[in-house]
C-alpha cells in the first residue's frame, strides 16, 4: 500500500449489555494525527466505544479497524501500537511512580530511556515523587503518571477516557496543553469528555447520547449548524425570568447559560418585543441581544429533536 490506512475506522458498531443498549450503530473515520473528541454525558456509550476500539470488548455487530488492523482478528497488533488511559485509575497502587513506568515500558519491550523525550515534559513534574507509591499521589499527579504509562511505548494512537472528569479548570487547561504537544509529535488522539467547552479544543468531535452519534463535525461548524435564532437575555430576577420567558409564545426553548438565559425562538424576533413583554411582567434591568450559539446549545437542540 502506498498510503497509510486511516488511524481509526468503524462502521455500524452495536453493543448491548443484557437489556441495556450501549451503542446503537455508530460509524466514523479518523485521520492520522487528528485530535478527535467524543463528547457526551455519562451513560452515552463513550467508554464502551473506547473499550471496543482498544480490543478490550467485542462488538455485537459492525466492524472496526485501528491503524488498518481488525479489532477482532488482529488485536495483538493493535495493542502494541495504541496507548490507553482508562477513566478509572488503573496503575499499581503499591508500586512507586518509577516502578509503574518501568513496568509498563518492560511490558512493551522497551525502556523508559528510549522514549523519554516523549514524556519528559510530563514526567519532570512527577520526578520529585518518583519513589512515592502511586496510590499515595494526588489526583492530578495520578493522572500525569497514567498518561506517562500510556505513552512510554510511543503509541501511534492515544485513547483517553475522560481524563479531565472531576478535575478543576486550571488542571484541565494544562492537560489540554499537554495533548496539543503530543499531537504536534504526530500522535493521533481519541479523547472523551463530558465537558462541552472542551469540544472547541479538538480538530473534530462526535456528540454522543444514548448510544448514537448526534453529529460529527469540526467544533466551529457544529455550533454554526444551530437551527434557531438565538438570544442572550438578562434581567435581575433570573429564576422568574426563566419562567416568564418560557411562557412567551415565540419561545422555542430557554435555558440558563451562566449569568444569562439562552433563548431560542421559532422565527426571528424583534428584541424590543421581548423587552416590552418582560417589562409588563415587572422585570428590571432587561437586556436582549442576539448571540452566537455554542456547542452546548447545539447539543441541547439535537437532544430535543
Amino acid at each position, binding site marked *: 500500500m502506498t498510503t497509510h490506512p486511516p488511524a481509526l475506522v468503524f462502521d455500524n458498531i452495536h453493543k448491548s449489555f443484557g437489556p441495556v443498549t450501549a451503542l446503537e450503530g455508530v460509524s466514523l473515520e479518523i485521520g492520522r494525527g487528528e485530535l478527535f473528541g467524543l463528547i457526551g454525558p455519562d451513560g452515552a456509550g463513550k467508554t464502551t466505544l473506547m473499550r471496543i476500539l482498544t480490543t478490550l470488548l467485542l462488538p455485537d455487530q459492525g466492524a472496526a479497524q485501528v491503524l488498518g488492523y481488525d479489532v477482532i482478528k488482529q488485536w495483538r497488533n493493535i495493542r502494541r501500537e495504541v496507548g490507553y488511559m482508562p477513566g478509572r485509575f488503573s496503575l499499581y497502587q503499591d508500586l512507586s511512580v518509577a516502578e509503574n513506568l518501568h513496568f509498563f515500558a518492560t511490558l512493551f519491550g522497551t525502556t523508559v530511556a528510549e522514549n523519554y523525550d516523549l514524556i519528559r515534559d510530563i514526567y519532570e513534574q512527577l520526578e520529585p515523587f518518583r519513589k512515592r507509591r502511586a496510590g499515595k499521589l494526588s489526583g492530578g499527579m495520578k493522572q500525569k503518571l497514567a498518561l506517562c504509562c500510556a505513552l512510554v511505548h510511543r503509541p501511534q494512537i492515544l485513547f483517553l477516557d475522560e481524563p479531565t472528569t472531576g478535575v478543576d479548570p486550571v488542571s484541565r487547561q494544562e492537560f489540554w496543553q499537554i495533548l496539543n504537544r503530543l499531537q504536534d509529535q504526530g500522535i493521533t488522539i481519541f479523547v472523551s469528555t463530558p465537558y462541552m467547552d472542551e469540544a472547541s479544543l479538538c480538530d473534530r468531535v462526535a456528540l454522543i447520547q444514548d448510544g448514537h452519534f448526534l453529529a460529527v463535525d469540526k467544533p466551529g461548524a457544529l455550533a454554526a449548524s444551530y437551527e434557531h435564532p438565538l438570544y442572550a437575555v438578562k434581567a435581575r430576577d433570573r429564576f422568574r425570568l426563566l419562567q416568564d420567558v418560557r411562557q412567551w409564545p415565540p419561545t422555542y426553548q430557554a*435555558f440558563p447559560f451562566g449569568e444569562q438565559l439562552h433563548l431560542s425562538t421559532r422565527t426571528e424576533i424583534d428584541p424590543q418585543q421581548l423587552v416590552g413583554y418582560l417589562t409588563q411582567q415587572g422585570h428590571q434591568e432587561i437586556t436582549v441581544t442576539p448571540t452566537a450559539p455554542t456547542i452546548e446549545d447545539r447539543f441541547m437542540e439535537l437532544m430535543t429533536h
Partner: protein
Amino acid sequence: MDVITADKLTKRFGDFVAVDQISFSVKQGEIFGFLGANGAGKTTAMRMLTGLSRPTSGQAQVAGFDIYRDVEKIKRRIGYMSQKFSLYEDLTVSENIEFYGGVYGIKARDLRLKTSQLLSELGLQEVARTLVGSLPLGWKQKLAFSVAIMHDPALVFLDEPTGGVDPITRRQFWEMIYQAADRGVTIFVTTHYMDEAEYCDRISMMANGRIAALGTPQELREQFQAPDMNAIFLKIARGSQTA
C-alpha cells in the same frame, strides 16, 4: 439570618495547613458557591461544617449550632448530597427514600406520606419498586437531591452534584436548586462547571487553604476585571501556584 458563620476556621494535618483561618457567612435562602482548585481545601472545609471533622482552631455555627459542641444537632439540620455517593444502588427508589427518612429521624407515619408526595412530585411512581442502580443518572440525581432535603433542613450541602450529566439535565437540576432556595432552603454547592458558578447568589473561591475571593458574580467580575468565572478562577489558581 445567617445559616453559616465561620470565624478563622482552621484545620491542620501535621505541618500542613489544609484550611487556613477562613471567615465567611451564608444567609438563609442563599445559593452559595464554594469553588477552588483540587487540593485548595474545599473538602476539608466542608467536612468541618458538616460535623465530620473537628477544626484545629477557629469558630463556626451551622444552622444555629456550634460545630464543636453540637455536632449531632447540626447533622439533623443539614442535608448532604454528592455525585459520588448519595443513594444505595441495590435498594429500590422507595427503599432509599424510607431509609434516608429513617436516618433523618422522620416518624413512620409522616414518612409514608412524604414518600408518596416525593414520588409524585418527581414523577417516579412508576419506578418506585425499581432498583436505583438501573435508573438513568439524571433521575438518580434529582431523587438524591429530593432525598437530601426531605427532612426540611436549614441548609443542604451539594458536593459536585452535576458531574457527568447531560446539559439539559444539568440545567433541570439547577432549576430544582432554585426552587428549593425559593422555599428558603440554603444551598451550599461546589462545582467544576464555571457557568454554574454564575447561577449562585455569592461565590467563594479558595486557594491554598484561604478564601481568595468572595462576592456576587458581578462583584467578582468587577474586582478581577474578568469577563466570567472561568477567567477569575484561572487568575486566582495561577496566582496561588506562583506564590
